[in-house]
């Protein structure tokens, strides 16, 4: 019997090239953030000088602080709303307006950001809302809760529903069954959803540009206006710090999901 070779040389080459393409630019960026030379392209030895520069750059620090606050607030609200939406969609069976509801939840996932940003700004202007922290937070929540809903919903879809039913047969009311049985099982997805919402918010330039007001720029807005003027070593340092922060977030997320999935295994073999 002739077997199709499982892993050809072509497969290995395309994988290696693909991963190199994905990682090399970021590695180069990180490396050059430690470059002592002001010229971005000349290697002048190791140095932390650009990190110093960043920590003395008041406007940048303020923007970073604003971004962090928005990211934490919007990710938390989005996780709450997104999880509720996922529960309704995957356990609510049929209900009135379900099609509209799921449509509204899937559309922002692919909707061009310029449209989302513009429409929210027009709403805020019409409401005469003062633009700043809260308007950006609302805008980011609207976008990221859809991602949370998708992540949590796919986890809920793969759960064995007989567990919930067993809890209720044993006398739990539905809310108790959900809190005691379902919630611990979908906890990893909820954590992952929060992390995703957090990084998406930290990352967003377009929607924040539309919905923020004067004097409350987020970090991407500051970085963007600097980058338009050209490459600066300080930006490399800031980008490296953001990458490090996100790396920490990912590690915590994967540890949390490992922890809760091993607990879940002892409680219920899934």
């Amino acid at each position, binding site marked *: 019997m002739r077997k199709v070779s499982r892993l050809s040389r072509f497969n290995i080459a395309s994988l290696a090239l693909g991963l190199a393409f994905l990682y090399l630019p970021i590695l180069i960026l990180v490396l050059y953030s430690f470059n002592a030379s002001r010229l971005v392209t000349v290697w002048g030895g190791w140095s932390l000088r650009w990190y110093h520069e960043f920590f003395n750059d008041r406007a940048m620090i303020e923007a970073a602080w604003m971004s962090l606050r928005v990211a934490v607030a919007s990710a938390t609200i989005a996780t709450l709303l997104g999880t509720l939406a996922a529960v309704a969609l995957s356990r*609510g069976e049929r209900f009135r307006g379900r099609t509209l509801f799921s449509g509204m939840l899937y559309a922002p996932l692919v909707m061009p950001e310029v449209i989302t940003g513009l429409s929210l700004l027009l709403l805020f202007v019409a409401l005469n809302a003062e633009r700043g922290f809260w308007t950006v937070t609302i805008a980011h929540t609207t976008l990221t809760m859809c991602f949370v809903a998708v992540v949590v919903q796919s986890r809920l879809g793969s759960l064995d529903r007989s567990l919930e*039913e067993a809890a209720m047969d044993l006398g739990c009311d539905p809310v108790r069954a959900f809190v005691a049985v379902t919630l611990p099982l979908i906890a990893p997805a909820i954590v992952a959803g929060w992390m995703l919402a957090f990084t998406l918010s930290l*990352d967003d330039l377009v929607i924040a540009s539309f919905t923020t007001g004067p004097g409350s720029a987020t970090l991407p807005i500051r970085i963007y206006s600097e980058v338009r003027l050209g490459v600066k070593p300080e930006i490399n340092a800031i980008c490296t710090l953001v990458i490090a922060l996100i790396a920490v977030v990912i590690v915590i997320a994967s540890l949390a999901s490992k922890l809760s999935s091993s607990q879940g295994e002892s409680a219920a073999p899934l």
Partner: protein
Amino acid sequence: MSSRRIFARPARFAAIAPYVWMVLFFLVPFAFVLKISLSQTAIAQPPYEPVFDLTAGWDALKAAFAALSVDNFKLLVSDDIYVFAYVRSLTVALTATSLLLLIGYPIAYGMARLPQRWQAVAMVLVIVPFWTSFLIRIYAWINILQHDGLLNQVLLALHLVSQPVVWLSTDTAMYIGIVYSYLPFMILPLYATLAKMEPALEEAAADLGAPPWQVFWLVTFPLSLPGVGAGVLLCFIPIVGEFVIPDLLAGSNALMIGQTLWLEFFTNKDWPVASAAAIVLLVVLLVPLLLYERLQKRQLERGR
């Protein structure tokens, strides 16, 4: 079974809060975009007229309604700048999506053929760059592509070119940026379908004497079409409205519609035209958006 139905009732109540939120901050804003797209620019705050004022009484409201017009849409259709911008957006998105498919498919295929435990590692490796900021990834490429950047240094050192090549502000740079940013979106759905595929099917085709390219073309590729569809839509739709990548990497002589909208809004302060441009962009994207939504729903609800 009955317990399943009992569970459904409180689950439906869970919809209330997110439902209200999405109606308020997703649906209602579109009504505003639509209304302002039918208004005229004005030197005022807010910079358009008419402004609906519910306290002004019925007649003022009627007058405001009468003042709405489709002039902005006529402008969009008749002015070359906008027509070109839409055509360019669609061409760029089409070209970039084809490139993404050509580059992403072999990578996803390689992943699907890895031993089981390596597949999980490869998947994490593909997802991680998606978590790092969009803007940072574009900035990383500016570092590499600039006049005395790494790429030119390498090319010069290898004597492949005698002078630094201009990479920045070209379409090449823009396509590199788009492919780099959207590659995970293409790879993941492709990998998901390829990994589920039964290897016995390919083996059977090979046993019956099909050369490898025929095995791929007649068996593997047709079976992976759902993944191709998801990946293509997931990339194509946002690329059409892309703003950051063309703005930072491409030249300024041919703008995409996302850039035009941004320019009208922030630089020219013409909110009505920007709103009309957004509506047209949405209409252009309606078919792919609906296709994508159906695909997503079918995938998620299959697990139910």
